């Protein structure tokens, strides 16, 4: 548990955590291995030493692309202690996409696995990238890697920051942006320290059967921005179990193996678990709580989970955006035996962090309790703006307030009810997909005349990514070309789930704006036919 309030940097929180908890405290369960605080500390120290020898110091950007593994934690804290800046890359982004992001961020060092090394090195060389690539396991070409032992006389005191400035950059993350155009953001030590407090509220025990130190099985990809929340979960005292493979079957095996007290999963993943025909064959009695985030969590889903997990009695959901360093508000409740849950979308600002909210109308004026408007946020979680994009920064960040673009009802006392998420984004399985990005990518393919991408509501996905493509001629482009083109550079969750070739993109009368509603209706019709 976090014992000291108001610490201003991740490094202070890390030091506080390792000094005030016993080294034998179990922190992480990975596959069938238990990692204690003592283990974590030893590995973070080793990584810190190696990274310092590789030149990591304040201002140095370290990119990493790793599957779910404990090394993600070691790396993140080691970068932080040296004052470096982490650039986590989702492993499913194709190498060409990763290299582009690394170059744009001026990364000087990249950390990956021996398995991914050769292909990343080849693509990096083709692009003329100058960063060094190292691995967390045995390096394929020998030499420097993070798995080796440090020299016995190495003194960490010489390299670890003695004082960490709160405004030192610690993490670069990509945002889909409030208008659907991707933007990169920079999070500081202070932003991420605030987030540790906010995210730990999400996992703070509030029922007797989930006491301090309870366990949770995680189905979030750790190497991406989810790490931001996950460090709050860890400092919050929760024992996290996870595996490299997060298929629904493997996840349920993990739950059974560790007899996890709770599950931490996006709502779409809950649906995938519930669709497993062999769900009854897993022992589900240990699960008492579900913790979710990244999307709406409906009362109906909570009740369906209750049927599958008989001892489930409580839920928690977090709300936040990348521009607010993720979670700033939470909603929690019990799942009663009679099966009536009042609301799951009333979110309350986490107290004690220093963030503030306001609900404003379209002109930017505050509106009274009970009215609907747009949510604005101010405080230590809120970032300074977008990297290299002053226009959009000026549009979305006004006098320190960030305009979320989310439509809410003002409930007073730091609470709101979420009514709608950013309308330009597609929310697929909890991840935000910018239709503009996918569309622009499709339009670059030779033979494509025009395209439009819409989110189509689906119970399993939240929304499916559906592409409408106009070809220059019928034989100019086939489905295979479209998919090959998309899989070459887009992350897997951005690749269209379905592609429909159309003679022209439907437009609205007047100025000829793209008619999203017509396309959604066309897709829905096709979906209804295929599920009949």
């Amino acid at each position, binding site marked *: 548990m976090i014992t000291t309030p108001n610490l201003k940097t991740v490094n202070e929180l890390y030091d506080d955590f390792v000094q005030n908890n016993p080294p034998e405290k179990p922190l992480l369960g990975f596959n069938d291995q238990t990692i204690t605080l003592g283990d974590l500390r030893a590995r973070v120290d080793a990584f810190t030493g190696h990274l310092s020898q590789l030149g990591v110091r304040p201002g140095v950007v370290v990119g990493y692309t790793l599957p779910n593994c404990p090394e993600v934690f070691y790396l993140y804290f080691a970068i932080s202690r040296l004052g470096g800046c982490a650039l986590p890359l989702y492993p499913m982004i194709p190498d060409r996409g990763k290299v582009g992001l690394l170059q744009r961020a001026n990364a000087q060092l990249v950390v990956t696995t021996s398995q991914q090394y050769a292909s990343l090195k080849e693509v990096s060389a083709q692009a003329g990238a100058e960063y060094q690539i190292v691995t967390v396991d045995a390096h394929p070409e020998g030499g420097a890697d993070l798995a080796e032992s440090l020299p016995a006389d190495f003194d960490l005191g010489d390299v670890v920051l003695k004082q960490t400035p709160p405004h030192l950059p610690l993490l670069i993350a990509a945002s889909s942006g409030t208008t659907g155009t991707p933007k990169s953001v920079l999070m500081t030590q202070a932003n991420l320290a605030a987030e540790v407090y906010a995210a730990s509220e999400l996992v703070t025990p509030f029922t007797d059967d989930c006491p301090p130190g309870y366990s949770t099985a995680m189905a979030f990809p750790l190497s991406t921005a989810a790490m931001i929340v996950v460090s709050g979960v860890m400092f919050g005292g929760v024992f996290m179990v996870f595996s490299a493979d997060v298929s629904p079957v493997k996840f349920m095996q993990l739950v059974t193996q560790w007899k996890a007290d709770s599950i931490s999963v996006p709502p779409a993943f809950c649906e995938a678990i519930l669709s497993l*025909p062999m769900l009854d064959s897993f022992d589900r009695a240990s699960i008492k709580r579900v913790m979710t985030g990244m999307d709406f969590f409906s009362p109906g889903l909570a009740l369906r989970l209750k049927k599958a997990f008989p001892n489930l009695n409580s839920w928690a959901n977090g709300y936040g955006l990348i521009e607010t360093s993720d979670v700033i508000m939470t909603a929690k409740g019990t799942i009663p035996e009679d099966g009536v849950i009042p609301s799951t979308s009333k979110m309350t600002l986490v107290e004690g962090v220093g963030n503030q909210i306001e609900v404003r109308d379209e002109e930017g004026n505050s509106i009274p309790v009970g009215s609907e408007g747009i949510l604005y946020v101010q405080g230590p979680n809120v970032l300074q703006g977008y990297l290299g994009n002053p226009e959009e920064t000026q549009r979305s960040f006004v006098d320190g307030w960030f305009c979320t673009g989310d439509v809410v009802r003002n409930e007073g006392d730091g609470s709101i009810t979420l009514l709608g998420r950013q309308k330009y984004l597609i929310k697929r399985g909890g991840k935000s997909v910018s239709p503009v990005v996918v569309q622009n990518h499709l339009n670059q393919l030779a033979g494509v005349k025009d395209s439009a991408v819409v989110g189509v509501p689906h119970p399993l996905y939240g929304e499916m990514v559906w592409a409408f493509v106009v070809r220059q001629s019928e034989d100019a482009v086939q489905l295979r070309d479209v998919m090959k083109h998309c899989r070459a550079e887009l992350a897997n969750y951005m690749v269209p789930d379905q592609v429909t070739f159309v003679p022209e993109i439907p437009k609205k009368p007047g100025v000829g704006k793209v008619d999203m509603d017509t396309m959604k209706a066309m897709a829905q019709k096709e979906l209804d036919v295929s599920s009949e």
Partner: protein
Amino acid sequence: MAEKIEWADFAEKIADYTGLEKDDIHPEMNVYYDLGMDSLGLFSLGMYLTKTYNVKLPLSAVATIETLENIIVLMNQQIEAPSAA
């Protein structure tokens, strides 16, 4: 009744959907590791195959799939005995 699906044709359809070359498609390919899909991507592939072959493939059965061979076996089972799954 639909005809049994042959591997060669199935591999062609998988190549269409994934954008991979047909020669690179093998029955033992893992949809998560080798095709780089997430669980929702697998459902999308299932929907595409259902539509292409006009074979009912219950979404609940799709969740258990790990390899391409699992998919073709499941689809051919559905063709032979549509009520089985």
